[in-house]
């Protein structure tokens, strides 16, 4: 024990002054979640796969919401995303005094209207 104690006196510190000095995140660490709404097609796969159910996607209004305080940082949404628009930065989310929701607005792509004759045909044949 004595050599360890002596080493501790003269060696490098094991701790750091956290909010002032931060350790750099590892390359593939699962930190804060970000979404690139330009790429997102509001497919809702992330919302369905999320085990914490912290993501909600509204396809009619184009709203993408995430509750970062319910998020468990498992990265399942990133894996299932069909457009690769979800990303986790290696840094952790900084602490907050108040809870908030992440709001993102996406573009609602309207489906091309089907021609009146196409949809009417099967019903009219019956």
């Amino acid at each position, binding site marked *: *024990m004595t*050599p*360890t*104690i002596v080493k501790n006196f003269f060696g490098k510190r*094991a701790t750091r002054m956290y909010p002032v000095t931060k350790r750099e995140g*590892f*390359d*593939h*660490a*699962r930190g804060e979640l970000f979404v690139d709404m330009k790429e997102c097609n509001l497919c809702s796969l992330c919302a369905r*796969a*999320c*085990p*914490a159910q912290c993501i909600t996607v509204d396809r009619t209004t184009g709203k993408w919401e995430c509750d970062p305080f319910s998020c*468990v*940082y*498992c*990265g*399942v949404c990133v*894996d299932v995303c069909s457009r690769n628009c979800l990303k*986790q930065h290696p840094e952790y989310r900084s602490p907050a005094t108040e809870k908030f929701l992440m709001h993102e607005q996406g573009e609602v792509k309207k489906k091309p209207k089907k021609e009146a004759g196409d949809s009417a045909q099967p019903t009219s044949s019956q």
Partner: protein
Amino acid sequence: MARTIVPFGPQHPVLPEPIHLTLTVEDEIVTEAVPALGYVHRGLESLADIRDHVQMIQVVERVCGICSALHAMCYTQGLEQMMGVEIPRRAEYLRTIWAELHRMHSHLLWLGLYADAFGFESLFMQFWRIRERVMDINEATAGNRVIISVNVIGGVRRDIDAEQCKWILSELDDIEKQIRELQSTMLNDYTVKKRTVGVGVITKEQAIDLGAAGPVLRASGVAQDMRSLGYAAYDDMGFEPIVETDGDCYARGVVRFRETLQAIDILRKAIAGLPEGEINVKVRGRPKGEVVSRVEQPRGECFYYIKGDGTKNLDRLRIRTPTFANVPPLTAMLPGMELADVPVIILSIDPCISCTER
């Protein structure tokens, strides 16, 4: 001297998690100990009704904060068996690596808490400093520090490349050196021995009768370790369970200390033998049937019963954790001991109450 009842816990400086013990004391000697559980019950098993069988991986990981990867491993292993999935060998090796990293950081956490329980604060800090490096390895390889979320049905989600393997090996060399520096203090120090030798003895027969598990059982001389079943890549690891015969707190400390060093050896073997290939296979279909899955957690045998009825939600999920098995032996260890030794004895079973109550 009249009998006195001393309530111990659920809030007590020595307890990392809440458990209550009603201690009957005569002249500072414990005559009876009655445990009470139920402070951190979260109903995770019944969440299987709401979350589908894939989302349940993240739920079972949260049964225990310390051995999360092993819970997920036990669960996915069971489902793979049920659905008849053969996972790639590389995935099995990777699971073994993460399982042993978890065993290491869990044992280092326990060694620290144990040192704190008998009042050796600086030893506690030393162990936790080493533990931090193990968790750094977890974060660099899997993405998160503790709840690493790498297991999926059909394999693992993350791979470890050659460069990372090299870095892990160099870190392990350093970690082993640091642990060995603390070996003489942990195992030979006069004060440590004074507090632990002959304290909380449980004989081999008692341990078997009361159904002890893990290091508690092995410290009493029973060589039972679920890793001998050869799940994941343990069949290639040439692994021998670590056994002590005294059955006291000291023996339990020795078993865990030696297992930490053994985990380093297994890690080296696993990294050296890591085969090339895929890390997961695509799994289709829904679980149908029933299965029992067992793995060795740092605290002992973990048992999963999974029943699927062909829908996406499981019909039944039953988890039996090692601390649950170790509570009856704890009540047999306490009578006849001094009240001052109670914290050390309770810590010596490595209680994980969140596991027990789920």
